């Protein structure tokens, strides 16, 4: 007899557990308010990325097209992946001295792991992390970027 009670109680508990699960999924089926997915490309304008979000490295420029990079290569040394290559040139200062300055700030986005070490290492605060995250392109060469704008100069007073 205990075999039979066992048999039927197994059936009862199993069916009950299954119905409970179905109740839950049924609840979500009928409650569309609970939907969590976002309509991504359409909601681009309302996307709110936190300001700390690291999407890519950019170099800040002010309105006069001046940046703060002295070409000291601290970021290049700090980078674990060889993402940054700094090409320097020699400027002639008004006093007639030769001075090392930034020529091109090459940034390989395809190698970057967004570790933020370069930003931390920069003594002058020339680079920062940007929130842009849609980086996909069809040609990987496009991922190699030049961060300093054309004809930009070093900001006054940045050493």
């Amino acid at each position, binding site marked *: 007899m205990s075999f039979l009670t066992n048999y039927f109680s197994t*059936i009862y508990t199993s069916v009950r557990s*299954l119905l409970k*699960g*179905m109740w*839950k*999924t*049924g609840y*979500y*089926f*009928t409650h*569309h308010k*609970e*939907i*969590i*997915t976002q*309509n991504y490309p359409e909601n681009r304008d309302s996307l709110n990325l936190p300001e700390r979000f690291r999407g890519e490295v950019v170099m800040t420029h002010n309105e006069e097209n001046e940046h703060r990079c002295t070409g000291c290569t601290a970021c290049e040394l700090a980078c674990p992946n060889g993402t940054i290559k700094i090409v320097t040139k020699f400027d002639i200062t008004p006093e007639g001295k030769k001075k090392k300055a930034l020529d091109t700030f090459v940034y390989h986005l395809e190698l970057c792991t967004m570790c933020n070490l370069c930003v931390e290492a920069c003594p002058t605060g020339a680079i920062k992390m940007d929130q842009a995250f849609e980086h996909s392109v069809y040609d990987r060469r496009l991922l190699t970027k030049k961060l300093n704008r054309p004809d930009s100069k070093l900001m006054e007073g940045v050493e």
Partner: protein
Amino acid sequence: MLSIAEIANSLQQWLMATFSPGWATLIEFVLVGTLVLSFFAFLGLVLVFMERKVSAYMQLRVGPNRVGFRGTAQTLADTIKLVVKEGLTPDGADKFLFNFAPFLVLITSMLLMAPIAFAKDFQIWDINIGVLYISAVSSISVIGVLMAGWSSNNKYSLLGAMRSGAQIVSYELSAGLAIMSVVILVGSLSLNDIIASQQNGWWIFKGHIPVIISFVIYIIAVTAETNRAPFDLAEAESELTAGFHTEYSGMKFALFFLAEYVNIFIVCAIGATLFLGGWMPLHIGSWEGFNHIMDFIPSSVWFMGKTFFLIFVIMWFRWTFPRLRIDQLLNLEWKYLLPISLFNLLLVTFIALMGWHF
């Protein structure tokens, strides 16, 4: 009131009057063929879309919502994609069987359409052994599955096919026994008789608990027979990649896919016919007013409503439950469903003989 049956009848009369009998029959055949084909394609599109939407809402998603109005054309787009895909046949496969299997599976589900009463007096073939016909023909599809799995010369396919063979034949028993309990109550194998007997109430209401048990067993068994989760061991994605149709691609895969969905429709249609009264509107005893209002809803809507409700339940299973393991699956059938349905059958007979059903 204009009903589908009337349209069909007047069409037939017009055909008979206009053409010679031979031509009329031929044209009728062509019409039926076109109708069935388009219904087939339509079912595939609708059911796949429904499945995707049901799963999406249960999974806190929106589901397809880009192609067409609110994503309704998504399945059409998928079909086009499958059509323009290259269908591959593996080098090691048994080419004939490999290509024949989708035909077999599809023809089987096509044949199962014949006895289904879609609306009042609207049936392709009013066969007097409808229930037996369905039991018999539906077992052919397992041969298609076995054929597909074996001929692929792929180990996953082989295992999937073997599993599916054991599974389908096992669950056929309890599905058959569940169907039989209604047959006992009605005393006829014809689907039309069964529907007619539910004039004053559906069997699920009239037949007391034993019929409800039969209904539950029927739903479980057909879920297993159509290889749907939680009994989708033949395809068990996380174990056997795609099971018996691993090697199928493009249109041949699409045919399996379509047949699967049409089979779901058919088993649910049979379930609706046997237990929920088919196209018969909801009638409650002697509430004349209520019954009269219910009669205004077209019979085809009743039929489709019930069928799609059952389809929804089967989808609901799929998106809620984990998959069983093969030995548990067979255990469930042989240790629980079969003994219970055998016992239940006797109970139903007892009730029928005592005349306790309403």
